């Protein structure tokens, strides 16, 4: 089937099998920031924003994405400037192997779009579907909080 959707602001017409998942299609289209960790929705490494909501792209059929807007990690930086969340992740040491990072950041973006001043509990809930084995989540939570501050215009720097 042919599906027309917007990926990181650019409209694309993709050719796909009727039963293909969004994850497979994205990676086939060269969007490599979206990772496969399990294929069953248990790890969150494949998370993308679909019409503004973070979802496991391995569980979404491409057939449901006609006319959809997809945002992945590749769409966060603007004009060569890193998104405050990306900067915060780098500064806080929140990236170890980096495999869970794109998916986790998309969950964080979903949260911060809706809730600019989240509590620690809300941050942890927002990323509760993103498993990480390297970091223990500490610095990622700190990074998300720091990004939220900056995005509210409150942080230093």
């Amino acid at each position, binding site marked *: 089937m042919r599906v027309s959707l917007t990926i990181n602001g650019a409209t694309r017409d993709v050719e796909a099998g009727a039963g293909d998942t969004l994850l497979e299609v994205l*990676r086939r289209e060269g*969007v*490599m*920031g*979206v*990772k*496969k*960790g*399990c*294929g*069953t929705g*248990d*790890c969150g*490494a494949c998370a993308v924003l679909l019409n503004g909501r973070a979802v496991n792209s391995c569980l979404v059929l491409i057939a449901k994405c006609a006319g959809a807007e997809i945002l*992945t*990690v*590749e769409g*966060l*930086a603007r004009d060569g400037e*890193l998104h405050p969340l*990306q900067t915060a*992740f*780098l*500064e*806080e*040491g929140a*990236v*170890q*192997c*980096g*495999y*869970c*990072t*794109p998916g986790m*950041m998309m969950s964080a973006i979903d949260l911060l779009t809706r809730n600019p001043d989240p509590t620690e509990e809300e*941050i*942890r*809930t927002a*990323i*509760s*579907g*993103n*498993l*990480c*084995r*390297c*970091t*223990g*989540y*500490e*610095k*990622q*939570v700190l990074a998300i909080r720091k990004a939220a501050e900056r995005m509210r215009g409150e942080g230093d720097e």
Partner: protein
Amino acid sequence: MSETKRPAFAVVGKNERKVDGVGLVTGHPKFVDDLSLPETLHVRILGSPHAHARIVGVDVSEAEALDGVACVLTHENTPATRHTTAGQGFPEPSPYDARMFDTTVRFVGDRVAAVAAETAEVAEAALKRIRVTYEELQPVLSIDEARADGAPVVHDEEDSTGIYDASKNIVADVDIDVGDVAAGFEESDVVVETTCETRYAQHTPIETHIVLAYLDSDERLVLRTSTQVPFHVRRIVAFTLGIPMHRIRVIKPRIGGGFGTKQEVLLEDIAGLVTLRTGRPALVHLSRAEEFIAARTRHPMRVRVKLGAMQDGRLHAIEMEALSNTGAYGAHGLTVLANTGSKTLPLYNKAANAHFYGQALYTNMPVPGAYRGYGATQGYFPLETAMDELAERLAIDPIGLRRKNHIRVGETSPIFAKLGEGREGVSQTVKSCELARCIDVGAERIGWAEKRGAKRVDGPWVHGVGMSIMMQGSGIPEIDMAAATVKMNEDGSFNLLIGATDLGTGSDTILGQMAAEVLGVPLAKIVVTSSDTDVTPFDVGAYASSTTYVSGTAVVRAAECVREQILAVAGPLLDAEPDDLRLEGSAVVGPDGQSVGLDRVCHRAMYESEQFQIAATASFVPTESPPPFIANFAEVAVDTETGRVKVLHYVVAADCGVAIHPKLAEGQLEGSIVNGIGYALTEEMLFSSKGRVRNPSLFDYKIPGALDVPKLDVILVDSYEPTGPMGAKSIGEIGINGPIPTLANAIYDAVGVRLRETPFTPERVLRAMRRS
């Protein structure tokens, strides 16, 4: 503390941005699966449905006939060379008991055949068309079954080597002693004994095992693989496939975690052979289920510890007996077993009598391998809980008992010399140990004095606190080697070429920091290339907590050689003796403040006068393995009605020597502790009565998520290791050892039950409470 010994650093000790960080946060295609090559074949592996069987016949004709199938591999058309898959230095201290495809299958999921096809879907369909006739054999599915008289023999083949006694399923046998424990226990005022069991657990790296093999334009085999051990991969694949090593290049790009499961040559032989046979790139990527079943796991162990002490708390005798289930193949069997004793017993060097003995046994179960902690994790469970029991019997505070008995600076333990990586070890004296301070700050942070024994009640919840202390090691002395090359560019920057393997740990960054420190430049002037066997010099790879200490020393040495060369070139430019010059601020600076930029110096050497490439390669084999130390403290709340354990607060105070990059060091502790908490509370691989893994998915093998983490306090205590590069030791593994015994001790403080089996699920805790 030796504050005076430690110089002020310019780059080391700073939280620099990771050199590979920007690409990781922007989703740059850096992982194995992110490179697509045209004509790539997808490889799927057929796993055995039986725990133990002979392959009597295999018919691949229908599979081969399927449209889109390029190549089918079985034991009939692949090399029969016995080898080990363990990524260890040569000669590997693991048996050569594996074949690419064997005629006997030894666990549910063991390799039977592999198909390479145009798509993974076609390859899967072809697997279903392979007709295999099995003669089922009786399996052994536990340590006890493996040891029973007349037990089925897991490895009855003639051509395997390095097995201690295959007829009895014993892969390895270790027995060392100091003094006379029997007499020691007689002489002791108090004796306690405990036996603990740890289970099958899996590393669950978020990226499963994956390799892409292809021929480069010179027909050399390139293996782009998610590995911790690129050089061992090259050697073992060459050996297994019977091809010259110089025809193979191994490249490790960014990888998605390892934790030990990628210290193994698991898939590269298959990918390599498919490419050699077909001329096409071959991709092998394990599914998550295969990652549980057919990758590597923790060694489940039953470990008994007996402690004898005098009334004043001084340990007089320690005995540890370890029985390790090493699964269907013996990779890492001996060394993990030995580590169970070698990384635990020296901690309590005050005991004049010690005995460590044990065996690693074959079973027809999934294959354990290297996993962070590497035996120490399994050993500390009974050791640190027995210490708590001893403290109770002696009516001494658990902290006081540790203080009385732990090793200190200037001390040694005879265990260091007697027990190493599966054979004799290397004697050493501890030169840095801030364990006392770790205990002090940790106890204060958790509120030990107020909380221990208080058993605060809050509805159905009862609170308790527990603690434990650990040591580990930094590399494998006199065995492992690391090397580094530094070469200079005419803009005053440097290439740092290291075999050392960054699995996300940040080793590229910290090794770059060390080079930058020696060369007097910012980190941005060090361009790091790592883990490419054509380009970077040898390094054993990322294991044994060796990268900072061993690879770091090689880096420092190479940088120092380059510094000498730079100063020699700069001397005439500054009209000074090289001995009077130093490197600082990207320049060579003389005694009177005169300076010349590094770019100028390199230009001179590269283009102007007595031209030569400013560069050096240096190697390092350590003569000791200075232990890092940690003290763990945890507060738990136990729901007395459901048995659920909540960890409220976990404190770890650590002595890792100088932290080259404090946030990355903290990150290692945070990650390993959360992994350890999972291993303590929720992680367990479950098996059917026929040896099949029942929960090979993250749906039913539960690892901690962001909501499962307690308040976590990581304190890096100031320390300096004189033998370490810039004073550093290591930090990669030790954290994972803490949670099991610390939480067990805390649960005892809360509800008075001693748990001796992991994980401490609500059901187990409740049952233990009911029984007591």
